[in-house]
C-alpha cells in the first residue's frame, strides 16, 4: 500500500496554502516528506528551489514547521525551549525571541515550565518556535487541533497576521474546512494519498461554488434550469446549481417568469465541505445524512 502517490502541487510566495484531507489521507506523511523526515521513493520536493532530499539543510533554512503536534522539553521553560530550538537553526537574538513571544501572546508566561502550559499555550509556543529565526515559510500541521473555540480564533488571527503583516508563506494542513476557507488563498485536497483537487480558492469558488435556490417546487425548478440553462442540480436535499457564467438575476427572472415562487437565490454556504465530501473517501461508509443526495420525491 502506498501512503502517497502521484502527488504534485506548488505553493508560491505569499500563499496561505490549505492542505486538506480526511484522517489517514496522507497529509502528515506528505508534510513529513516535505520536511525531509521521511524519504519518498520517487519524485522531488523543493523549497525555494532547494531539493529537500539532496539539499535538505539549505531547504530547511527557510522553514519553520511543526508536524502533528508541537513537542517541547516539559522540564524547561517556554523561553528556554525557544532558545535551544533556535540554536538548531543558527540561533535567535533575545529581541527575536521577544517578538515571537509577543506575536503568539505568550509574553508573561515564558518563564514557566512547559509542563504547566495548557494545550492552547503549547500550540502557540509551537508557532513561536516556528518563527525563530524568522522563516520564509511556515508549515503548520493542524495548528488548531484540540483547541477550544477561543484558541481556534486566536490561532486563526495569528496565522492571518503572520501572512498579511509579516508576509510569510504558510502551508497549513487541516481537516477543518471553515478554517481553510477563512485563511487560505489556495487549497489542495488529498484523498488516500492522491491529490483530488488543487487550485486557487477564488478560482475554485468561481468554478465550483453552487447557488442555492429556495423555491416552492425544487424538483420542477431543477428540471427547468437544466432545460433552459443547461445547469445540472447538485446532489443534496436542496436545489443548488453551479451558475457557470449564467447571470443570477437572469436565472431569477426566468424562474419567476416560469411561475416558480423564488424566495431566495444565494451563494451556497458550505461549498467547500460539499466538494470535500464529494471528492474524498469519507463519502464511502458515511451515514446517509452525510451523503450528498437530492430529495427525489421533492423533485418529482
Amino acid at each position, binding site marked *: *500500500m*502506498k501512503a*502517497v*502517490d*502521484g*502527488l*504534485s*502541487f*506548488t*505553493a508560491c*510566495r505569499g500563499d496561505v496554502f490549505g492542505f486538506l484531507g480526511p484522517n489517514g489521507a496522507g497529509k502528515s506523511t*506528505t508534510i*513529513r516528506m*516535505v*520536511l*525531509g*523526515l*521521511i*524519504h*519518498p*521513493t*520517487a*519524485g*522531488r*520536493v*523543493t*523549497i*525555494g*528551489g532547494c531539493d529537500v532530499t539532496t539539499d*535538505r*539543510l*539549505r531547504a*530547511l*533554512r*527557510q*522553514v519553520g*514547521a*511543526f508536524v502533528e*503536534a*508541537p*513537542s*517541547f*522539553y516539559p*522540564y*524547561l521553560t517556554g523561553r*528556554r525551549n525557544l532558545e*535551544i*530550538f533556535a540554536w*538548531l*537553526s*543558527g*540561533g535567535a537574538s533575545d529581541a527575536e525571541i521577544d517578538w515571537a513571544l509577543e506575536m503568539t501572546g505568550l509574553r508573561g508566561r515564558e518563564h514557566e515550565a512547559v509542563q504547566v502550559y495548557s494545550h492552547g499555550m503549547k500550540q502557540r509556543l509551537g508557532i513561536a*518556535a516556528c518563527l525563530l*529565526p524568522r522563516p*520564509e*515559510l511556515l*508549515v503548520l500541521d493542524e495548528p488548531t487541533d484540540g483547541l477550544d473555540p477561543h484558541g481556534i480564533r486566536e490561532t486563526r488571527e495569528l496565522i492571518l497576521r503572520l501572512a498579511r503583516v509579516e508576509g*510569510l*508563506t504558510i*502551508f497549513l494542513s487541516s481537516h477543518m474546512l471553515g478554517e481553510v476557507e477563512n485563511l487560505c488563498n489556495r487549497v489542495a485536497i488529498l484523498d488516500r494519498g492522491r491529490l483530488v483537487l488543487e487550485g486557487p480558492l477564488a478560482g475554485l469558488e468561481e468554478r465550483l461554488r453552487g447557488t442555492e435556490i429556495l423555491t416552492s417546487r425544487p424538483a420542477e425548478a431543477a428540471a427547468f434550469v437544466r432545460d433552459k440553462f443547461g445547469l445540472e442540480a447538485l446532489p443534496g436535499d436542496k436545489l443548488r446549481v453551479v451558475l457557470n457564467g449564467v447571470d443570477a438575476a437572469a436565472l431569477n427572472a426566468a424562474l419567476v417568469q416560469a411561475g416558480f415562487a423564488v424566495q431566495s437565490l444565494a451563494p451556497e454556504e458550505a461549498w467547500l465541505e460539499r466538494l470535500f465530501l464529494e471528492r474524498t473517501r469519507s463519502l464511502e461508509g458515511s451515514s446517509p445524512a452525510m451523503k450528498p443526495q437530492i430529495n427525489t420525491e421533492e423533485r418529482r
Partner: protein
Amino acid sequence: MNGLFDSICVHLRPSAANGHRSASLGSVLRFEWVKLRGRRITWVPFLMTAIIVLLIVTVFHHLQFSYARKIFSSFQLVFQSKEQFVNGYYMSAHAMNPIFQILMPIFISVASGLMVAGEAEHGTLRACLVRPVSRGRLLLGKFIILAGYALALSLFAILLLLSTGVLNFGTGNLYSLNILFNNGQEGASTVPAADVPLRFMLAWLLATAGLMVLSALALLISSLVESAAMAYVITLSVYFSFLALRSFPFLEWLYPYLFVTHMLRWQQCISSYVKTDEIYVSLVHLAGYLIAFLTAAVLLFEQRDVKS
C-alpha cells in the same frame, strides 16, 4: 519502506535561500547539554552511585571476611585479621566490579535510550529534524554528550569509592583474588601500595573507554527503535548476553571477538598480572568497535524515516 511513499512532486517557493544558518556542532552540543542538565533523571545515577558506595562502606565495616581469609590462605597469603588486607584500595577494587560491570552500563543505556528513541517517542526528535541541522552532526553531538556523561559518572564513582574507602579503611597493598577480576590467571595477587593509585587510574581509563563503546552501541540501538524502554532493554540484553557468553569455558575461542572482553580489560590493572600487549590490543579493539558502532549509528540515522 520501499514503495510506501511514491511519486511526490512538491514545490514551495517562498523565496531564494536566505541567511538562516545550519546548526554547528557547538550549537548541537549546547542544545544536548541543556537538555541533559535540565532532566532530573540525569542526576539519579549520581545519587544511586553515592548510595551504593555508602552501602558498600557499611557492609565492609560489618563483614569479618573470614571466607576471603580462608581463600587467600590457600594461595599462601595468610592474614590474621581483616585489617591486614581489607583497606580502602581493597574495598574500591571489589566495588568497581559491580559498579562498572553492571550499574554503569544500566545508567548509560537508560541515558542513551532517552536521547534518541525517547525523543522520537515524545516527538521532540522530529521537532529537531525539521530544523537545518545535519542528522549526522546531531547524532555525533548526542554521542559526545553521552560520552561526557559516562566519563563524569565513572569519574564520580571512582573518586567517591577511593575517597570513602581510604577515609574509612586506610591504604596499603592491594590484595585480590584473580578469579574475581577475569585476568585468566589462578590464585591471588598483590599490588604494592605505592603502585595502586596508578593502577586505579589505568583501570578507570580503560573502564571508561569501555563505557564509551557501550555508549556508541546504545546510541546505535536507540537510533533504530521507537521507544526509550525498547532501546535500553535491547542494549542491556545485548550487553548482558555477551557478558554471559564469557561464563562458558567451551566458548573461550570466542572471547577475543566479544566487545565485552575488551570492555572488562580494566580488571587486569587491579591484579599483579598486567599484560600490556593485551591492554593495547583491547584498546585497539575498543577504538574499532566505537568507530564501527558510531558509523553504523550515523548511517542508519541518516536513512531513518521519522514517523513517530
